[in-house]
């Protein structure tokens, strides 16, 4: 299996404080599905920030798609970011734009023409059940609807890696399952999915998913609570 993410002894420190992440070493493989769990403050969001290239680590080596992104010149990073879809915990939708324009943003950044993006965006809006709210601003949408728009925005560009921070936190159980099915569908198409969650029930919804557990900024062994894990999480250390 092809390695898409390779962490080696990675640490992350904010300012002069203690390390938020410490000594992380693991590999993520193409087309796999990972859940990232841990209590609040365990470092889940910090790890995701490293994964979606919002920060560089304070120490260690990170390779993504086979390239060292720690020493990579910053002008090469946007190309890598376009290969990664992100669902933020607080959605981070642009409130002055419609649901349609929020979802279309990654395609516009990639230079897709308007005539070519209307179809995929409308299709995805239908899939998340918001076809009739395409022109609605996020502030007029419910929390669950906003979350669905945020997820649609993250997946519209068919990313090679999808990083989601508590993506089902504001939706009802039925919608949570539907969204996970969307992630699973993408995963089947080859996208590596990493979902941070503390909802233990979700872990059982995805066949073959693996779990990474963070505790005090360090990666601990898989709990083994996953349903039929196809491949155990690869820990280097």
């Amino acid at each position, binding site marked *: 299996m092809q390695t898409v993410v390779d962490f080696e002894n990675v640490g992350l420190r904010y300012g002069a404080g203690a390390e938020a992440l410490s000594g992380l070493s693991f590999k993520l493989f193409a087309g796999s599905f990972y859940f990232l769990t841990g209590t609040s403050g365990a470092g889940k969001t910090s790890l995701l920030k490293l994964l979606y290239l919002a*920060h560089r680590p304070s120490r260690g080596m990170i390779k993504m798609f086979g390239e060292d992104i720690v020493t990579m010149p910053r002008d090469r990073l*946007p*190309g890598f970011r*376009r290969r990664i879809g*992100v669902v933020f915990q607080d959605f981070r939708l642009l409130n002055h734009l419609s649901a349609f*324009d929020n979802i279309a943003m990654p395609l516009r*950044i990639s230079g*897709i023409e308007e005539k070519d993006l209307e179809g995929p965006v409308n299709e995805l809006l239908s899939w998340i059940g918001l076809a009739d709210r395409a022109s609605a601003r996020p502030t007029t949408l419910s929390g669950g609807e906003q979350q669905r728009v945020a997820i649609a925005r993250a997946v519209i560009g068919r990313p090679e890696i999808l990083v989601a921070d508590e993506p089902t936190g504001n939706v009802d159980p039925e919608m949570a399952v539907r969204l996970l099915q969307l992630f699973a569908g993408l995963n089947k198409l080859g996208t590596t999915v990493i979902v941070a969650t503390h909802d233990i029930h979700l872990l059982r919804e995805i066949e073959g998913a693996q779990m990474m557990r963070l505790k005090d900024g360090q990666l601990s062994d898989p709990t083994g609570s996953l349903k039929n894990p196809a491949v155990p999480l690869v820990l280097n250390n």
Partner: protein
Amino acid sequence: MGLKSTLARDDSKTFSDGRIAGPMPWVIAIMVFLTILAGAAGIAIADSASQNSEILARKMTVQILEEDPVARDNQRTRISEYLRALPQTETVRPLSDADVVELLEPWLGLNDDAAFESNDLIPLPAIIDVQMKVIADEKLRNQMLLGMQSIAPSVRIDTQESWIAPLYDLMRSFIYLIFGLVLLLAAATSATVVLAVRSALDTHRNTLDIMHLMGSTDSQISRLFQRRVAVDAFFGGAIGFILGCLTIWFISSRLNNIVSGVASQISMPWYGWIILALIPLLMGVLSILIARWTVRRAMKKIL
């Protein structure tokens, strides 16, 4: 990265408002207006100075300080003939006594022609205006003077250069001052753009962060700002240019009423209007470059 984004074509699909900052076009309009005025003054003065300095440098006045009017007339005629015979002279124009009276009247405040003409009150010099083909250097002037002194020992040569030089020194100083003013105005415009773009960056920080994490390049983001700054700068520039031209027209019409002196010779050459028309365009381009520099500098601070 040379990725072409489709965002910049319609930035309403990116940012919430249509402008970088409310007052920026108006500040640029004022800057362009002032630059147009300063530039127009500089161009007109420089053109006038360059046109007149050579003409005046080739001019000289010959004075014959002879008290006896009959002898003076005779000397004027002979010196005029002598000067016309020189290959270096272009025109020789002896002034009549009436012309000399008219010339002196504003300074001496006398209008009693008879008193002048009878030579009772003030003995008049005979004056000959000479336009040379070349600028007469000291050697040529001395040669001419020697030749004329053989006809009239009291003759003397006044070059226009002697009295006009301080005036042109002053004009040159004005030109340097105006050039400095134009540079200061360009610097002030740049500072305005930097502040406006920084303010806009703060306003749109959330949008930019999201775009950045989605893979927007610095070029894509700076193009969005450049486009907005361009719209504001060219709008402000056009307003400033129109107001500046109207003001120049107004001042020109007043200046045309001044019929004598150097002021009447100050006019805008044709190429001056082209330079003035370039000012709002150059201010616009400067604003775009400054916006690009500001955005890229700010973006470099984030990963």
